Every structure is written in C-alpha cells, then in structure tokens.
C-alpha cells in the first residue's frame, strides 16, 4: 500500500501558467461584454436577449455571468459512438485524450490512382471514408473535399451519405444550411433507430463556422440552432487569420477566436442545456507574401496549443488542427509540417484534431497525406502514452534473473511487454540496406501509396440497415427536387 503517491505516466506539456490562462479567459469575457459580436440571426438574438444579453440591432454583448453559466452547462467529457456499436470506434472525449481525423471542403483532391490534383468528385468520398475506417490512428471521418459533380447545395448531403455508408467511425458533418443539416440528421436518426436512440448514442458531430472578425453568420446559426434543438454534438469553429482577420499576436487571436466560439456556446446552451460542445477554431497566420492562411506554419501549432489550454481551463474540449501542410505535393515539406503539427497537437491533448490530410494550405485533400500522418500519429501517441512505473515495469526481478553478462531476449518479462511497450511501424522502414534493396528500394512515398491501394483493395464494408439505405435514396431524390424548385 502506497500513500500520497503521485504518478505522471504520460508526457506532460503545458505552455501557459494559470495566471496567464486567467488573463486570456478574462480577455475573452471582456470582448464579449464590452465589444460584442454581430449576430445575424433573429431567433438567436431573441434567445440571447431573453437570457440577459444586451442587444443593440445586430450587435450582441454578453454579461460575463451568461458566458460562465454556458461554460458550466457544457460537458467536458462525452462520447460519440460508432454507428455499428463497435466499441473500438467510439470516441471518448475527455482530459488527456487526443483524437484525429481529416478536414472538410477542399476544392481539389489528389486522385488515388494517378496521384494528380483535380476537382473533388463524389466517387472520392467512399475512398476517403474507407481509408479513415481502416487506419488505426484516425478516429473520426470528414471527407477532405466538397463534391464538385453534384448540385452545389447538395454536396454536403451526398458527402455525408457516402461517408456514413463507408465508415462506422463517428463523422463530423459539414453542411451548408438548415435544409441539408436536416436531411443529414434524418439519415443518422434512421440508422440509430429514432431521435431518442440517437440522443443516447450520437454517431455524428455537427460542424458550424462563424466568421472572423466577430460575426455569427446567419447560415452558421441556422445550423447551430438546428443542432442544439436536436441535441447533436456541435463544433463551432471560426477560422481567423492572424494579421488579417484577427490580431497578429497569438494571445490576441486566441481571445478573439474564443469569443467567436463562445457566442455560439452561449446560444447553444440556452437552447439545449448540456449540449456537447466542442470549442474552435483554426488559428494560424496569414502569410504576408503568399496571402494565404498557412496550414504548415509553426505559429499554427503554437496558437492551437494556446487555445487548447484555454479551452481546457474553461472546461471545454477543443477542435484541434494538425497533420496539414502548405506543400503542393507529397514531399519532405508535407511530412515535416504534418508530423510536427500532429506531435504538437498530441502533446497539447487537443480533443479532436482535424485537417489531417490537408495539403496546399487547405485547398487540396490527400489520402496519401492522411495515411502518412496515421504513421506520424502512431509515433506521437507512443511518446505521449509515456512511461508506466510500477513494480513489474521496474523489472527488478528480470534484472535479478538475467544478472551481469546475460541477455533479455528470451526472458518472460521481455515476452510479456515488448508488444505493448513497442510501437510497431507500418510505413517507416528499419530493414537493413540489403533487405531494402531486395524489397525494391521503396521510398516512404512508395510505401504510403502501396498502403492506400492495399486498404482500398481489402476494405470490407459494414453495411447500413436496409431501411437506412432506402431512406438515403428517398432523401436524395427529395433533395434533387428541392434544388430544382429553388432554381425555378
């Protein structure tokens, strides 16, 4: 029996002190209380006003007690479930748990056959979902693109249907507005077996994006209100550009982004107290030569670590970012930027790290980048899992047995632990030079390509219920009609 024993088994990373976090926290409350946001949604403004907000036209300011109240209502820990009940695909969000997945809405895609860049097609969605479903370190699914060859307004709906068919891992569903959000939800509810069953075991997270600086847009709030009313876990994530649409300093962009996200939090918690809410957003610098939002900058990882610490300080999970790159191709830059940001994200313990597989500054999705990053995440996770210290891992007995001048290769202690203590690489090559030559002198890129092809060739679908398939057909047919009516 030990008393007062303290264990730190994982790698611990902390950048900001409690005093600094309190300063950031107070900064967010100041922005919300004294500056406020433009809230371009009448119903949301009414909800806020009824709860004590100061409303002046579109401008809404929140007294800090309202924000603290909303923070107190939102859970720090909750579960998003696999649609087929496979517990290995459930995501348990909570302290010390970092999860990873791709991002949404890229315009282009790296073709899985030719590895050439081209517009994102509907046929790409199943491939992304299959790769996500198969990779051991990718926990949730987004599609890595906006479908180009279906009616624009329906691209998110088609995308969801194809993702839902081809992975059982939880999905983070992007959508345009109320119509497709509703259609997506009908599909998920059908598979779950009704709204009540869905609320007990939600299988997807709803994704909304407010606008920087300090605007809650109509479409983002249409979506937020829908999610809150139907108790769908919600990501509310702005995408400010430091030096462009947000202050240039990390502390400044963090408080602005947090204010933008917490306006959504406050609306959501007043509609649906206790709604699982994941704070955003994506914070990086605007490159002052290329004029793009950099997805590979060190400042991205730094700012994301800062806002993660603020989220956890406030008792919220965070929508992290990593595994992405500004590189246009599968090269050293892509792997350096992606791997470092994945490792930093894992260290910060950000709850859901998205945009894994983004290339060309978010313009092009790539399952090759995604698959390479699965390896980097595995690597990072082995480090962050840390060192377990107990009587058995101290191995004093084993050292007694082997003694000086022996070896551990056939000791039972080695046999017991080597598989759990070692991380086994999938893509990284450690063979001898001779074996490497014998195996065809494959590069990391060759092996990544082969793994993608192998996953796609051997993927086994866990089908949806027949009634869900039927509903998807109905929902898509209705939606096509709706689009025609909209255009008429």
């Amino acid at each position, binding site marked *: 029996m030990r008393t007062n024993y303290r264990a730190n088994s994982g790698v611990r990373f902390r950048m900001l002190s409690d005093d600094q976090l309190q300063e950031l926290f107070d900064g967010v409350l100041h922005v919300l209380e004294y500056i406020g946001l433009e809230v371009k949604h009448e119903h949301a403004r009414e909800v806020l006003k009824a709860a004590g907000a100061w409303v002046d036209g579109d401008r809404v300011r929140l007294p800090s007690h309202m924000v603290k109240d909303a923070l107190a209502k939102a859970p720090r820990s909750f579960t998003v479930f696999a649609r087929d009940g496979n517990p290995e695909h459930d995501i348990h969000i909570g302290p010390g748990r970092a999860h990873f997945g791709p991002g949404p*809405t890229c315009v282009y895609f790296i073709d899985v056959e030719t590895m050439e860049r081209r517009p994102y097609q509907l046929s790409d969605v199943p491939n992304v979902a299959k790769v996500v479903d198969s990779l051991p370190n990718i926990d949730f699914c987004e599609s890595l693109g906006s479908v180009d060859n279906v009616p624009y307004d329906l691209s998110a709906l088609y995308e969801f249907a194809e993702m839902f068919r081809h992975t059982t891992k939880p999905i983070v569903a992007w959508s345009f507005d109320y119509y497709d959000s509703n259609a997506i939800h009908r599909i998920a509810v059908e598979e779950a077996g009704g709204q009540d069953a869905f609320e007990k075991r939600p299988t997807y997270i709803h994704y909304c994006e407010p606008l920087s600086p300090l605007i809650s847009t109509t479409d983002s709030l249409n979506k937020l209100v829908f999610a809150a009313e139907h108790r769908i876990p919600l990501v509310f994530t702005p995408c400010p550009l430091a030096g462009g649409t947000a202050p240039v300093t990390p502390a400044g962009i963090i408080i602005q982004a947090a204010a933008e996200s917490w306006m959504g939090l406050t609306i959501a918690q007043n509609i649906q107290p206790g709604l699982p809410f994941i704070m955003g957003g994506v914070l990086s610098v605007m490159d002052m*030569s290329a004029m793009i939002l950099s997805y590979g900058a060190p400042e991205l990882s730094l700012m994301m670590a800062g806002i993660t610490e603020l989220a956890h300080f406030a008792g919220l999970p965070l929508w992290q970012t990593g595994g992405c790159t500004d590189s246009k191709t599968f090269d050293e830059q892509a792997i350096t930027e992606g791997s470092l940001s994945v490792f930093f994200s894992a260290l910060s313990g950000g709850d859901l790290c998205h945009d894994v597989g983004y290339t060309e500054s978010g313009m092009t999705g790539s399952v090759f980048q995604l698959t390479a990053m699965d390896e980097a995440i595995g690597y990072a996770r082995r480090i962050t899992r840390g060192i377990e210290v107990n009587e058995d891992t101290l191995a004093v007995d084993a050292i007694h047995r082997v003694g000086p001048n022996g070896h551990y290769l056939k000791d039972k202690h080695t046999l017991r632990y080597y598989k759990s203590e070692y991380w086994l690489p999938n893509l990284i090559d450690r063979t001898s030079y001779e074996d490497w030559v014998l195996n065809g002198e494959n590069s990391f890129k060759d092996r990544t390509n082969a793994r993608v092809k192998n996953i796609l060739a051997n993927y086994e679908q866990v089908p949806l219920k027949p009634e869900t398939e039927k509903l998807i057909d109905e929902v898509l047919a209705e939606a096509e009609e709706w689009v025609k009516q909209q255009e008429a």
Partner: protein
Amino acid sequence: MSEILSAMSTMVIEGNFPDMVDITKQALEEGLNPEQILNNGLMPGMDHVGVEFKAGNMFVPEVLRSAKAMQVSMDILRPLLAETGIETAGKIVIGTVKGDLHDIGKNLVGMMCEGAGFEIIDLGKNIEPEAFVEAVKEHKPNILGMSALLTTTMRTMERTIKALEEAGVRDMVKIMIGGAPVTQDFANQIGADGYAANAASASDMARQLTA
C-alpha cells in the same frame, strides 16, 4: 528628376501616407504638373514596391501602407488629371458577392489596385447582382471585380454577369473574378474576362485588361 519627386517616391516606398497630402500640394505649388507627379513621383515608388514584394523583401502590411500613400496623393491629383484630359489607370468597382461576408481578399485586391493607380469604388460585401448593375451604370468603371470565398456563393458571380447582360451593360466593363475556390476554368465557364489567383496578380491583371 526634381528633389521633391524623388522624395515622393521614397515616401510611397516607406508608406508615409500622413505626409502625402502636404507634399502633393507642395509639388503642385512648385509648378509640377499632375502627370509629372504621377509618372515621376508616385509610380517609380510603387514600381519599386512591386519589385520588392515579388522578391520577398517587402510584405503585405508594408505594401498596403505604400498603396495608401499613393491613394492619398491620387485623391488630390485625379480631378486635376481629369481636367487636363490625361487618362489615369482607370476605375474599378469591386465587391464581394451576395451571400458572402468574407471580404479580406477583396479588400486586399482593392488596395493593391489602388497602389497600381486605379480608382477603387468598393461596394463592400454581400452585394446583390442588382447593386452591381446599378454601380456599373452609375460609375461607368473600366473593370468590375467580384470576389467569393465560398463555393456556395461562387455561383452568384454567374448570376451577376447574367444580370449585367440583361441590363445591357455587360459590354461596358471588363469583369475580373477571384477568391479561394475560383479557378480559371470557372472564369471561362461563366464568361468573366479575367481571373487572378491573388491580390498582386489581380493588379497586374487589371493593368492588362485596361491596356
């Protein structure tokens, strides 16, 4: 070149816009004509800025201050140039299309084009096709520039071009489009005259279209 013109070039390069009004007036008082001031004072400064920006020695915040300096001086010179019948770079009406509230890209394009000597009429964001039509009728610009960040709102560019056609003013202007999801193919498809991938190439494109 006179000392004052050289000083103006330097002030443009340094982005010293607060002092541009005084020095522009002083140059005019010294008897320099507006065309000389533009071509031998402001433009050499801006050309230098363009070269340095492309070389990676100057960055957007500095370039925008230079463009602002240029614009402050041009506000004084433009009416004088018009009086004497001298053609300036031209006029651009610019806006972010309906449904889209993202406007930083459009603002950058506006400021870069201002730096290239254009007069910019910025309609703002979330602009209806009809408002673009009215602005074309009212301001008679050389170029109409439209921006969208969202794939959803890109289509409004097409609707705006149709509205211009229906109003019979399409041929009065060159149309330039831009924004993250916009491509050359899309520009061709909807019948725009030019597409630029970023703000710096947008000002080059504007020069080409009005050449």
